[in-house]
């Protein structure tokens, strides 16, 4: 049944206690996203029966709280600008792609390219994330409770990636900047990514990120990785390579 509230009646229909329920078993994703684009700060929304549909809750630009009650498909919470999106399930490819600020929290696993090109905000994945997590991240903070796949933080430019499990091959390949913290093992480091000392300020930063993600891991158990900055400049010894 569709319980989608028409935008013009939102003010009377929505209260802080009662989230507006959008049941996607009988309502198109386009209506959900349009209603979320028309939403006002402080509203709460629940998406029922998401059924792995694509592009759920994309482009939110108000301080709303959206709960997706089930599994989301591709590009959930993409281009997220404000507010919070919580997925009570798994998320498909391209979760929170190009997130600008606000937060996105997945209680299950996320597929490939989570938080790709994110400029800001916080993305929390309680389970595992697939390959290329945080690819080309540009300022987003990502906290993954489980493992991440290969080529994560590829060409990362800014932001922080925290992994409480293990990381796959080629972590941080061709990384410019961004700080990576991994508690478990790293299968291999990519080009120009190196382990760096975990100093007091990093422990403090990590503690803050873990707390923001609702986690209780000990920051001292992590290792820090980042750019060796050898790829920043043209090196004459490599001239014959071009």
């Amino acid at each position: 049944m569709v319980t989608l509230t028409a935008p013009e009646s939102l003010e009377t229909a929505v209260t802080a206690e009662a989230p507006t329920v959008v049941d996607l078993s009988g309502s198109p994703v386009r209506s959900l996203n349009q209603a979320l684009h028309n939403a006002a700060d402080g509203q709460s929304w629940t998406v029922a029966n998401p059924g792995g549909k694509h592009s759920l809750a994309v482009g939110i630009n108000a301080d709303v709280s959206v709960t997706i009650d089930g599994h989301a498909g591709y590009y959930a919470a993409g281009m997220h600008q404000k507010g919070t999106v919580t997925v009570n399930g798994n998320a498909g490819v391209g979760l929170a792609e190009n997130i600008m600020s606000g937060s996105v929290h997945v209680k299950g696993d996320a597929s490939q390219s989570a938080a790709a090109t994110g400029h800001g905000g916080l993305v929390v994945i309680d389970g595992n994330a697939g390959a290329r997590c945080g690819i080309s991240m540009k300022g987003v903070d990502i906290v993954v409770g489980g493992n991440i796949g290969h080529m994560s933080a590829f060409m990362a430019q800014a932001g922080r990636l925290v992994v409480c499990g293990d990381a796959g091959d080629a972590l941080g390949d061709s990384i410019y900047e961004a700080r990576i913290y991994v508690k478990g093992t790293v299968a291999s480091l990519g080009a120009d990514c190196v382990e760096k000392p975990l100093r007091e300020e990093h422990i403090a930063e990590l503690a803050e990120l873990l707390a923001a993600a609702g986690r209780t891991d000990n920051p001292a158990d992590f290792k820090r990785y980042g750019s060796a900055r050898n790829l920043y400049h043209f090196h004459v010894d490599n001239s014959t390579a071009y």
Partner: protein
Amino acid sequence: MCGIAALQLRNPSLHPKMGSLLSSMLCQIVDRGPDSAGLAVYNTPGLLSPGRSTLSLLGRDQGMTTAALTAGVAALLPSDAAAAVQVVGDTTLVGAAVGTDLLVKAVTETVPAATIIGRGEHVAVMKSVGHPMEIAAHHGLEAMAGSQGLSHTRMATESAVTAGGSHPFSVADDLCLVHNGSFSNHATVRRNLKREGVVFDSENDTEVGARYVASRLQQGDTLEEALVNLGNVLDGFYTLVVTTADSMAVVRDPIACKPAIIAETEDYVAMASEYRALAGLPGIDNARIFEPEPGKVYTWSL
């Protein structure tokens, strides 16, 4: 893109629902490849029966009446083979109580132009060009029972949109392979297989994968070993599902560009390109859902 939906039923009480479950999965992946489709069903009463081989021929029209085809095939087989022909949608199924080699010989002598798209005691393969849901309806998938099923919606990239180019490719008894992706060195592998005497039906890159797996299985590989070897020989981006008389396997290339998601319960194991194809399966809320690791071969047996 291409879409894959595959289902292996562990609980025999679900067998009557195989077709309707597979059909509901297929309907969610049509967007991924609407140009053509293929279906494979295993141990489906009415189409297949134990002790009899069945050949799936492309097309409903083999250039002669069903009676003439039946008589032509029967005349070339022992008298107790009880050859039978039935047309299902755009597919002609020829069955007889003989081995597949003998049946293939009888069919190709009767209809030299026939394209055999499936063979074995346990599998029927159906393919066509057009909207995948119409193809499924035309073949009556919804009502089919069975132990396993496989479907593929194709977005052609490496060869033409023809029924023959649709997946699955079934090139050895009860073996089916479907593919999302492309093999970049299929021409080289094809040449090598041809040199070993393997004969090809199409220009499709997926057929190379299927012929390679069949060749490895013939040389004594297990299904898992054959797919590990495939990973060493065939280059490209792919997610593959391979089924045999009693097994199902999933493997992705080591870079894992092509999607795959698996749901496992006590009653079934299901694989699809996207979660939304699995969303309607019974007990999905309590299933173990995961994405297969890159380069790792997963197998399940009935």
